[in-house]
């Protein structure tokens, strides 16, 4: 197990450097004139130019700049945005909202997916099963950019069941509709995995044994089958969490939720390069760490899996 963790960590480091380098290169390589972009339309004096060049290391090579950035990142200094705010502060403001939204979405998705998945696996080929199969295909296909504005229009504005937008520091209730939208993007896959996994386990030997020694069907399903079937689902939920943290961009934009995605889009629109790279790097780290934890959890949950 220990050797596996070490190997995964080394792989993670490699991926982390690769990913941040790609993002850094995309944002900063061959920039036209960042100082003029900073100053806008106003002319910029020679001495200002010199001072700023010195401060942002603009006269150095591209790789040296990346080196400076990595050094800052590893010592916990994410740098400053072009508007002179500390990126770490901006992240600290935005992060809790996004985390709450993602967790709420995950809970909604898991509850619906697991209960509906188990139910349709128990009645395979029945009406409910067929309806959910078609429904999950449709949900799976719909881009968030279709679901989010339509949900806002129908449930937020026309029916008025939920608040259509959530301003600064939203309550859990204000986050419910966006979380539901976000949940739809991961729900379908979770449901299908639950269904397949339960259906497969129902046919396994240990179920027959349990039934043969006189356990009730209810107990066999709810304890034996469910416990074994949820292992792949839990892995999937973990992977989804990473995705939700990063993927709430459209949802946060539509519902005006001041989270990470919302800030990121604003940073891209105002051409705030350092802010974009800062946010994306942190999101990549979150994504990688969550994926690692999921892999380890997988091994802990299922004693049949041994990494050596």
């Amino acid at each position, binding site marked *: 197990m220990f050797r596996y963790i070490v190997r995964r960590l080394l792989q993670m480091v490699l991926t982390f450097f690769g990913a941040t380098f790609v993002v850094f290169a995309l944002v900063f390589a061959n920039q036209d004139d960042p100082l003029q972009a900073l100053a806008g339309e106003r002319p910029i004096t020679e001495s200002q130019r010199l001072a700023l060049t010195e401060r942002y290391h603009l006269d150095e090579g591209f790789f040296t700049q990346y080196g400076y950035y990595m050094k800052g990142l590893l010592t916990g200094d994410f740098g400053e945005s072009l508007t002179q705010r500390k990126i770490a502060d901006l992240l600290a403001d935005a992060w809790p909202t996004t985390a709450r939204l993602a967790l709420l979405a995950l809970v909604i998705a898991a509850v619906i997916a697991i209960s509906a998945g188990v139910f349709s696996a128990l009645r395979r080929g029945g009406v409910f099963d067929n309806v959910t199969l078609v429904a999950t295909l449709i949900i799976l296909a719909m881009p968030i950019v279709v679901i989010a504005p339509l949900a806002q*229009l129908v449930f937020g504005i026309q029916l008025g069941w939920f608040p259509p937008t959530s301003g600064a520091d939203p309550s859990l209730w204000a986050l419910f509709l966006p979380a539901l939208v976000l949940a739809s993007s991961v729900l379908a896959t979770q449901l299908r995995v639950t269904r397949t996994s339960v259906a497969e386990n129902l046919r396994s030997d240990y179920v027959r044994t349990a039934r043969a020694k006189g356990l009730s069907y209810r107990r066999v399903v709810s304890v034996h089958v469910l416990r074994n079937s949820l292992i792949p689902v839990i892995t999937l939920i973990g992977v989804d969490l990473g995705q939700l943290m990063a993927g709430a961009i459209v949802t946060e934009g539509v519902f005006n939720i001041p989270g990470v995605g919302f800030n990121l889009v604003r940073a891209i629109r105002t051409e705030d390069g350092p802010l974009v790279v800062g946010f994306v790097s942190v999101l990549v780290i979150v994504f990688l760490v969550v994926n690692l934890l999921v892999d380890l959890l997988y091994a802990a949950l299922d004693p049949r899996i041994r990494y050596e």
Partner: protein
Amino acid sequence: MSDMNSVTAAEAPEKLSAQPRRGKSDKNRSLAGDAWNDLRKSKIFWFAVVLVAAVLLMAAWPSLFTSADPNECALNRKHAGPSGGAIFGYDFQGCDVYARTIYGARNSIIVGIASTALAGIIGIIFGLSSGYFGGAVDAVLSRIIDIMLSIPFLLAGIVLSRRLSSDPNDNGLLAVILTLGLLTWTSSARVMRSAVIASKSQDYVAAGRMLGAGPGRLMFRHILPNSIASFIVVLTILLGVNIGVEATLSFLGVGLKGDAISWGIAISEGTGFARVASGPLVWPAVFLGLTVLAFIMLGDAIRDAFDPKLR
């Protein structure tokens, strides 16, 4: 795979594109014939085919569906309700929503097909060489794919698309195509790789090698035509997904822009005025949703028909 197949594969690979990858030599029917029999009976398949055909028709000849000019807008009918020709009403600039929705299909289809083709070509090259050569080549290419997959897709798309179209006068079409192509080839490369590994050890490849065929000929004339079925399914689904991502990027303001007509832009503008008029938001969203759904359903139906395990 039977010997007969390997002979025909050498002679006429293009005719074999629909041939089974790991099919058993059935009594009279091939796996492709079986699959077609399944498909013919599937309602979902026909539903998807009709939708796809309608969207393609819309993209090719929008004037078949509407005689209105999508760029003819008049502010005095801003947010006006449905009337005579404009059955979906008018948007906030007084443009005909129906005409703009019909004309929007073209950009979606162009981006979808071009970016998927690009992703497919990169996927073929990476997947073929990774699967065929194995060893160090495979290790390096797999690591590159790992890095690509570790960057959240939409984030990378935003940054890359923004980067590629810095010119404000350009409508962003080429940038979006390149962005999607360069970011989405990983799934097709993986499918190609595993298909190649599966068919590499087949007898007909060994026979070809013994007859003196080089790696290039083996890969492109023998292995590729026999591994292409599952690859095409992945690309069909990817086509639908890419149309959705194009709309998402345009929605966020980093995809198509300027005077380009796009469902994503229309949804973005419609969201801002949803309280005043819902038509300009709802119709592009419905068309986009149905288009994406159609391609994904088509791919899904074909895959189910070709997968013997699901029978």
